[in-house]
């Protein structure tokens, strides 16, 4: 492709990456949010291909496709309104967040504009994949080994953290839903308000009365 076409393609991918990134946090449907994020990643992958980091760009398609599919399943599992059928707002400190977001964009943008970056042409544009392979399996082997060990540790850690059989018995013993108003235990879902002096939840039966949740009000 010639330079003009690269510029046009870059413009399209850049706008799409940012637009889909913004859509992630404004759509009601969790599946749409997740796959908007995937679309943002795909556009960044396409820009990486334009940047001649061909392998990394295409690998990004692959990796993000898998990761966002898993993400979508977690989104549906852990959001109370996954399909966005009931409009709802699940945000806090919106003003602070916008200000910090704009400031960080402005800050990094200012760095990009102010930095005196010399453009150096790539010596061998056709050999970037081979060079990356030799680098990963050669002088950067230590990096790859750290990557491998980190991923193994991640796998072990993720299984330990998420296992249903926790370190001290079943992981969900004594688990009660959080109070809707933080700190006010009478607003816990499933708690009898004005009952026999304390809350007991009806959600699950194991442990009977012995597993009483730590009442925040006493502390």
């Amino acid at each position: 492709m010639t330079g003009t076409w690269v510029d046009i393609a870059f413009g399209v991918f850049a706008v799409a990456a940012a637009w889909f990134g913004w859509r992630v946090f404004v759509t009601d449907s969790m599946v749409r949010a997740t796959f908007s994020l995937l679309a943002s990643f795909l556009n960044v992958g396409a820009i990486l291909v334009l940047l001649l980091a061909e392998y990394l760009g295409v690998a990004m398609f692959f990796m993000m496709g898998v990761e966002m599919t898993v993400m979508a399943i977690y989104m549906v599992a852990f959001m109370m309104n996954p399909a966005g059928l009931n409009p709802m707002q699940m945000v806090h400190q919106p003003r602070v967040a916008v200000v910090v977001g704009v400031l960080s964009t402005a800050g990094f943008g200012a760095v990009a504009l102010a930095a005196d970056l010399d453009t150096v042409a790539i010596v061998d544009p056709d050999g970037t994949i081979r060079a990356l392979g030799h680098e990963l399996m050669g002088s950067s082997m230590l990096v790859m080994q750290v990557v491998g060990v980190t991923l193994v540790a991640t796998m072990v850690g993720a299984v330990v953290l998420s296992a249903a059989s926790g370190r001290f018995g079943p992981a969900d013993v004594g688990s009660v839903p959080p109070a809707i108003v933080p700190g006010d235990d009478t607003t816990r879902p499933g708690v009898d308000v004005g009952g026999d002096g304390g809350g007991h939840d009806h959600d699950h039966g194991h442990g009977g009365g012995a597993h009483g949740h730590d009442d925040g009000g006493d502390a």
Partner: protein
Amino acid sequence: MIEVAGAAHPVVGALVVVAVLALGAMAVAVTESVVTAHVAGSPLGSAWSRPWRRAALVLARPQPVTERPDTLLWVLAPAAYVGMAALGLTVLPLGTVWAVADVRTGIVVLGSAEVLAMVAVFLHGWAPNSPLPLVAGYRFVAAGLSFLLLSIFVLIAAALPAESMSFGRIVASQEDGAWNVLRQPLGLPLFLVVALAVSLHGPLDVADAGELAGGTTAEVSGPARLAWGFARRAMLTTYAVATAVVFLAGPAGPLLPGWAWLAVKSLAVVVVLVWIGQRTARVPVERFVRVAWTVLLPLSFLHLAIAGVVTLA
């Protein structure tokens, strides 16, 4: 000797991809009909025309309306699925010294197309806002996360003797040495599993299975159903061509031109895949996932190790 071809003119490339997918999907439909007739022992005469009559029937049906579907994703899902079939086809050599775009990262592009096809099937199940399609979408993701790894290891093994991730080079390495079906005997059956699963065919059609009332297509009828049927067969076409390229040296062969050899080999793979689909029982998804992680995945590791040793020897 096939050199890595550059990119074809975009218009030519797009036309070729559309033509191959359309012809391939028709060939798959007719093969399915003929194999079904053969298996059932019914006369073959009507088998040739049955796909067309069934397509016309499907086209004439009205589309039911579900409660608050995600209309945009419902329309996009079949388009994305067939688009991924097209993306996979662009990196495959379709004739001697010719591919639409024989990129250096060919096997990663095919793997990405497979992953994004999984996303498309999930969305196809999600969008109607209906229980059975949603279940089908989840089932396909469970199966997909299992078979994706298989295909990647098989493709990496094929890339080892070629010393390149380009499919053109993979064909060239088979012309210089032996075909991968002989050199890497475990690869072909593993890749056929992937081809059946990703194109929602036969025993591994976990998404559109009958016991889920058609799975992701339970709420789809009319032109949209025809589009999905086309998309599945287009995907099977892409994976048949990929199988022919990776294991049967694709366009390589004497006398006939390259595209003709590729067509013959791909059609043979289609017949094998459809025949397996008609002759084997459907696999429950949890059993498939168990077998995939405990048997097939270790086999693919072994396959990769053997391919590495053979390449170095």
